[in-house]
């Protein structure tokens, strides 16, 4: 025993020495680099930034501070602990106001620290294991626990999983073990044409693409037979694990007519649990990202949760990257970072296996694997180092210099008018291939499925793409008609605004979009061209992809007011390390960075001190997050709030307002009693569609049987059908959703409502409040514009209100006059001239066509009203209403959860911008 111990210690010591020689940096650095996608879920509001908290296992990972006023604060690194190079931490708190409802229960964090385990397993290497990263799963389950009972946040320093060895001839046995408990093994296989490696069922090792190698570059993919017996000597194919958790199409709910009327039932597919073999670092990082989308917001995708949690993940560290890979730049590979049960690294004679949690250890134990020899570990280590350097070399070729791709990408949103967008749009076919192969793209639409008999009507969720024309279509307008708008939307979302929405980058560097683009557009080149050179146009012909002008933009660093020299020096020592980008870009108010720091700061940092801010798009990420008003609390699950299954609601009254507009009163669920002015509901008309409608009146007199009114104009088939409904008919209702008008701010203020056309409908509940509570605000004006007198809404009730309440001023105008009209004619913004505004204490709510809202805000701003005292209500295409389908994006926001009510300050650079 002692001999073994001595031998092991000697071996590991030798190995440690070798590591240092290969110049991969100190152990500490390497660990931190690979911690990029660690969730720090235990950093709830109860433990604000307490590094010493026993609940925190990452002693060297920076914490976030969450507080009610500033949901996210940049952390202060402790340089003394060598944390200057600490990677960006992704915390669930990055989505302000979101509590992870299904977060691990606090008691999970009280498990004994792995330090104890360290002491009881002296045979393990001290310091770190070979692959120094947090090798744990981040599946979230509904019941507050993961399947993996090991702590998901064990510090790599103390995690002591040894590297075991699985001989090649035992792989069949390993596969058989995976197939127990009814699991289906999905792994890499050659497709039917034999030309591509895709994910498919694997029954025996012969199904794997033995001896296959890939050659991949922009628009090109070939598989070649090398003749050896390697199983995993390639990178990625066109599909990813995304399709296993989030399938291309899925039936979600069904509408039938039962004995009590309309009934909605959920549809679920029974699938066997999977064992995923061969998932790569980029794929698992992507799954981690999708967790944030589907599990970390206001609504949770049940089927995704179930698929994700039930899957066993056998990951593979990449030893043969493709030329399109750039995982090192995004911090996701080539080693697997997190989210696996067992990670394999292939050698000639077998596989190094590292368990990520109890499940993985159990697999190793069942197979009775022996620890790998030092030589084997060394070879694996070298293979991975080689893979890493291959990737870094190919990135360097693309970027033409020391450029932090991730950081450059994060600034894309600040360049909405860069000429490169139009140039690339000339090449782009808007064919949707990039979004379809991307492992993080999640946008989907809901189609109605009904056959000739029309019963039952089902809803099917289908992968969609922001490159389609219909993606940003609303009645009468399309927000992204040009391909260049859509290309810009995709790239800025992927690299920039994803941070704002989900706290991580959306790109995992897998390179699939590069390989599978039919015309070979390379996003690395695009990012370099647009984000790489601050304010300077790169001389690149889009077609030939010439190297861009070399730019000296280094990794971004957190330049604090008291940034020290040692901080910048540490940056200098690692010029091209594929470093994880730092979100803590300096705020405009920070002290001017030193010259040394400037040469390594991001374009955004360089821009902000020199150019006037252009609004939210130009703001550093931390400011953006702080500027977002707190997201709505997570929608309650269960009654009425399951976003996939509506609740039936009965129409109790139908009132025709104008020739094409009808107000319907609906008896709805008690949830509606909690609704606020400005919120909306998704109304399901079985077989027709599920459009969003703003609530135009609340009747909460009876809390058990609230009523809401929806004022709808007939502009298409669904609204036409809706307007034709009569009392007794039923529809499906989901909501209330969205952010409401901030009526609580009206106290002590004058309140001005500015509305155009149907925009009066979402404002009417505010009017109701003012009518009911005379002291809600000081002075009150409602200025309304309509196309013509016949199109004016709520004429009777508003006329009556104007007469009976002298404190309520209502002024209405029309675009075109008609006989009998004696009021003003002209734009509603012209009515503003007659309003005696005190710009210091006026709160404004504007709702109407976007051009009208833009004009209204501009006019009022010129009269001195501050942008954060003006609120608008935005309309976008919505498929889900709860922040999952991706359709309602505008700039960094989701209209359904960050809006639909936004302040004008938030809307700078967004409202009125073409194609945003």
């Amino acid at each position, binding site marked *: 025993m002692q001999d073994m111990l001595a031998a092991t210690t000697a071996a590991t010591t030798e190995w440690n020495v070798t590591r240092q020689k290969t110049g991969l940096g100190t152990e500490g650095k390497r660990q931190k680099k690979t911690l990029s996608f660690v969730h720090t879920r235990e950093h709830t509001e109860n433990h604000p930034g307490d590094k010493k908290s026993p609940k925190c296992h990452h002693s060297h990972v920076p914490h976030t501070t969450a507080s009610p006023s500033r949901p996210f604060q940049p952390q202060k690194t402790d340089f003394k602990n060598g944390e200057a190079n600490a990677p960006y931490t992704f915390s669930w708190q990055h989505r302000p106001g979101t509590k992870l409802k299904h977060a691990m229960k606090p008691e999970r964090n009280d498990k004994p620290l792995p330090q104890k385990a360290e002491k009881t397993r002296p045979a393990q290497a001290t310091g770190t294991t070979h692959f120094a990263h947090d090798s744990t799963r981040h599946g979230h389950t509904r019941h507050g626990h993961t399947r993996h009972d090991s702590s998901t946040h064990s510090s790599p320093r103390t995690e002591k999983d040894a590297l075991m060895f699985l001989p090649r001839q035992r792989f069949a046995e390993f596969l058989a073990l995976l197939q127990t408990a009814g699991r289906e093994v999905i792994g890499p296989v050659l497709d039917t044409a034999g030309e591509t490696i895709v994910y498919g069922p694997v029954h025996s090792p012969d199904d794997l693409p033995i001896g296959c190698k890939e050659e991949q570059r922009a628009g090109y993919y070939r598989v070649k037979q090398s003749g050896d017996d390697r199983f995993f000597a390639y990178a990625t194919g066109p599909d990813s694990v995304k399709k296993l958790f989030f399938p291309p199409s899925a039936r979600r709910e069904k509408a*039938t*007519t039962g004995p009590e009327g309309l009934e909605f039932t959920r549809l679920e597919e029974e699938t066997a649990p999977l064992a995923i073999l061969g998932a790569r670092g980029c794929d698992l990082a992507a799954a981690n990202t999708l967790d944030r989308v589907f599990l970390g917001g206001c609504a949770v995708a049940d089927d995704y949760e179930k698929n994700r949690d039930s899957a066993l993940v056998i990951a593979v560290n990449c030893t043969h990257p493709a030329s399109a890979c750039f995982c090192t730049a995004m911090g996701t590979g080539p080693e697997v970072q997190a989210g696996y049960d067992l990670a394999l690294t292939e050698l000639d004679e077998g596989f190094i296996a590292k368990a990520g949690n109890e499940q993985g250890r159990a697999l190793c134990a069942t197979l009775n694997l022996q620890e790998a020899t030092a030589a084997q570990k060394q070879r694996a280590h070298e293979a991975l180092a080689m893979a890493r350097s291959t990737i870094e070399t190919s990135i360097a070729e693309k970027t033409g210099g020391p450029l932090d791709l991730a950081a450059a990408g994060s600034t894309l949103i600040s360049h909405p008018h860069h000429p490169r967008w139009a140039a690339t749009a000339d090449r782009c076919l808007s*064919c949707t291939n990039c979004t379809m192969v991307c492992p993080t793209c999640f946008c989907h639409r809901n189609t109605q499925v009904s056959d*000739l008999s029309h019963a039952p009507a089902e809803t099917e969720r289908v992968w969609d793409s922001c490159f389609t024309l219909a993606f940003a279509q609303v009645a009468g307008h399309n927000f992204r008609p040009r391909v260049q708008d859509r290309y810009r939307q995709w790239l800025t979302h992927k690299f920039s605004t994803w941070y704002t929405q989900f706290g991580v980058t959306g790109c995992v560097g897998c390179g699939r979009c590069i390989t599978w683009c039919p*015309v070979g557009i390379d996003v690395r080149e695009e990012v370099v061209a647009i984000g790489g050179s601050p304010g300077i146009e790169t001389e690149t012909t889009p077609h030939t992809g010439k190297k861009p002008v070399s730019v000296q933009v280094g990794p971004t660093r957190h330049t604090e007011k008291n940034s020290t020299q040692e901080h910048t020096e540490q940056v200098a020592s690692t010029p091209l390390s594929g470093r994880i980008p730092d979100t803590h870009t300096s705020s405009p108010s920070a002290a001017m960075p030193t010259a040394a720091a400037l040469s390594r700061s991001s374009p955004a940092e360089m821009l902000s001190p020199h150019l006037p801010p252009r609004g939210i798009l130009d703001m550093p990420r931390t400011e953006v997050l702080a500027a977002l008003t707190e997201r709505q609390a997570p929608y309650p699950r269960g009654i009425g709030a399951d976003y996939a299954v509506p609740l039936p609601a009965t129409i109790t009254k139908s009132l025709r307002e104008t020739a094409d507009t009808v107000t319907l009163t609906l008896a709805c669920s008690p949830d509606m009693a909690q609704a606020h002015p400005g919120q909306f509901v998704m109304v399901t008309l079985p077989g027709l569609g599920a459009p969003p409608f703003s609530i135009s009146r609340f009747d909460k007199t009876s809390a058990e049987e609230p009523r809401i009114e929806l004022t709808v104009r007939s502009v298409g088939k*669904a609204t036409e*059908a809706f307007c034709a409904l009569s009392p007794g008919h039923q529809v499906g209702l989901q909501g209330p959703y969205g952010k409401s008008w901030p009526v609580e701010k009206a106290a002590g203020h004058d309140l001005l409502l500015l509305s155009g056309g149907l925009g009066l409908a979402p404002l009417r509940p505010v009017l109701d409040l003012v009518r009911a509570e005379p002291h809600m605000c000081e002075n009150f004006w409602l200025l309304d514009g309509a196309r013509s007198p016949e199109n004016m809404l709520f004429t009777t009730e508003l006329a009556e209100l104007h007469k009976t309440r002298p404190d309520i001023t209502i002024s209405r105008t029309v675009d075109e006059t008609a006989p009998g009209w004696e009021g003003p004619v002209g734009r509603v913004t012209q009515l503003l001239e007659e309003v005696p505004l005190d710009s210091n204490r006026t709160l404004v709510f504007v709702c109407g066509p976007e051009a009208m809202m833009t004009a209204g805000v501009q006019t009022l701003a010129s009269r001195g009203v501050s942008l954060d005292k003006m609120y608008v209500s935005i309309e976008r295409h919505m498929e889900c209403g709860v922040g999952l389908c991706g359709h309602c994006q505008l700039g960094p926001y989701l209209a359904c959860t960050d809006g639909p009510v936004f302040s004008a300050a938030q809307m700078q650079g967004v409202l009125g911008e073409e194609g945003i």
Partner: protein
Amino acid sequence: MTDLPAAAETNSLPKPAQPDLSPKENLAESSAHNLGEKNTGPSLAVAKFTSCDGCQLSLLNLEDHFLDLTRRFGIVEFPEASSLRHAGPYDILLIEGSISTPEQTELIQELRKKAKILVTIGACATTGGVQALRNWANHDEFRASIYPHPEFISDLATSTAIEDHVTVDFALPGCPIHPDQLLELLSAFRAGRRPQFTDEAVCAECKRRGTVCVIVAQGIPCLGPVTRAGCHAICPSYERGCYGCFGPKENANIDGFFTYLRETQGEAAIAQLFPAFTACATPFRDMLSVQNGRPVSVRVTSPNSNLPTTPIPPDSPNPNSPSQV
């Protein structure tokens, strides 16, 4: 509460009341047939112009749904299936085929008057079809080379889409149309919704289906990225490139695509890509030019693009030879 005003005169079916979502009745118990004048549903007719009948066959390819169709709609005229004829008027008229004779130009005008909703089905009716290749050709020469007495042939020099002659309410592309799209169209009529057709590229359907891209993985020329989806991406699933039979998608970037394909796959490989079943659809038609009375060559024309514009002479022996600019 005011009454609803009288519905304006629109080309729409009587709206269904609250949709009846009760379980489907047993088909066997329903009364037989609905081919004929006695029926309860809207009347459905099919008319044929210059076409191969493949799109009419797609209606029959609905198989079980076709039986349901006969119950829900009264099929009053359907040349492929029945010799029954009906003088009109029709609630829904499906038109297959393009206009290529003088008589057809008059007939289409009459049919338009008789149809409440006119739906063109298939590449011939929506774009002129493969026979529209003659639009670039010298028609008299063709006729003379085939018929000994061409003076007895009464036809037009062009084959044109129905929408070039009358207003069309819906157009179902495809060669042939996909039965699922027809089913969706008719189900949408029943439900009262807008038919859910997308104008996304075939690539979206290939990827959702799990088909591997033939361009990228096999170097096979394929028009999928600029062609409209709807066919469930059949052809690439058989490892052959899409030939654009559903016509161009919205904003189809022909120039960009063609330029790239020409560079990577060569002139010969793509010479025959565009002159096919939807050749006359814009912007596919911009790819063809007339040479020697035949549409044989392909050229890039794009005044607004910053891509190189290179006219390509036809019948060139070696498209890659230096003499070609």
